[in-house]
């Protein structure tokens, strides 16, 4: 039983890895660096109280949704969720926040507990680039 579960997990991981091989059609520069400037990985924030998150992006520019301009995209903040399929439009819900007006920071409020945050760039149509531009996934604890 355990073993079967294990095999299923491997198959799942392989499928995910294959999925991750896909990407959108908008090219990104190989030296692009996307990161969460604040908060830092492992930091503690006050629960149910807004705190600022700023988005860092190097070697790429910001353009609002719908704007096609070379080497640009707009930020998406993933909360408590893994990367979505990288060849499709990034979902828009409470776990996937879109910053289609070209925002480079936001105020965020989290319920008590551990949470993960990760940034993912989307192109003019909210589809990740090729190669995809994603930040490291960080963990914050809301107390």
């Amino acid at each position, binding site marked *: 039983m355990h073993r079967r579960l294990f095999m299923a997990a491997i198959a799942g991981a392989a499928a995910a890895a294959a999925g991750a091989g896909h990407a959108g059609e908008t090219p990104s520069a190989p030296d692009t660096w996307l990161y969460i400037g604040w908060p830092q990985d492992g930091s503690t924030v006050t629960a149910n109280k807004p705190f600022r998150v*700023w988005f860092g992006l*190097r070697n790429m520019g*910001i*353009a609002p949704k719908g704007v096609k*301009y070379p080497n640009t995209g707009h930020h998406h903040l993933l909360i408590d969720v893994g990367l979505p399929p990288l060849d499709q439009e990034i979902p828009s819900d409470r776990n996937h926040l879109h*910053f289609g007006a*070209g925002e*480079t920071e936001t105020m965020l409020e989290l319920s008590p507990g551990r949470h993960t945050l990760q940034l993912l760039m989307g192109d003019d149509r909210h589809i990740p680039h090729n190669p995809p531009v994603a930040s490291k996934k960080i963990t914050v604890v809301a107390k």
Partner: protein
Amino acid sequence: MRQLLMIALLAATLPASTLARAQAARTPAPPNAVVYIIWPSNGTVIDGGRFWLRMGLRNMGVAPKGVKMANVGHHHLLVDTELPAMDQQIPNDRNHLHFGAGETEARIELPPGKHTLQLLLGDQDHVPHEPPIYSGRITVTVR
């Protein structure tokens, strides 16, 4: 002689500013918009003079030059200079760096000594908004 020169100077500057003001339909900015330098902070000493400047913007978005949308603009860095005329295009030279590709970070190189840095947001035509959105002017030292 000195007085004559002054009058001549006045006469030369007057028509230009009147003309610019007559054309002015400056792009509105939200009154709570804030542009600021995330890094370096005021008084930072930078060894070697090469650094990544991080540009912060609140309550407004970033868009490349030429993009006409509400509540967006792009960053301009003023190096060792005062604020330019607010009703005209921001000059484009070594003291006025344009980030018209929507950049929010830039690699800067400065010679040894004291330098001032200030951000000024420009609209799709590189003209400051109404009200103009600019940061405090900071001083950094390169050694």
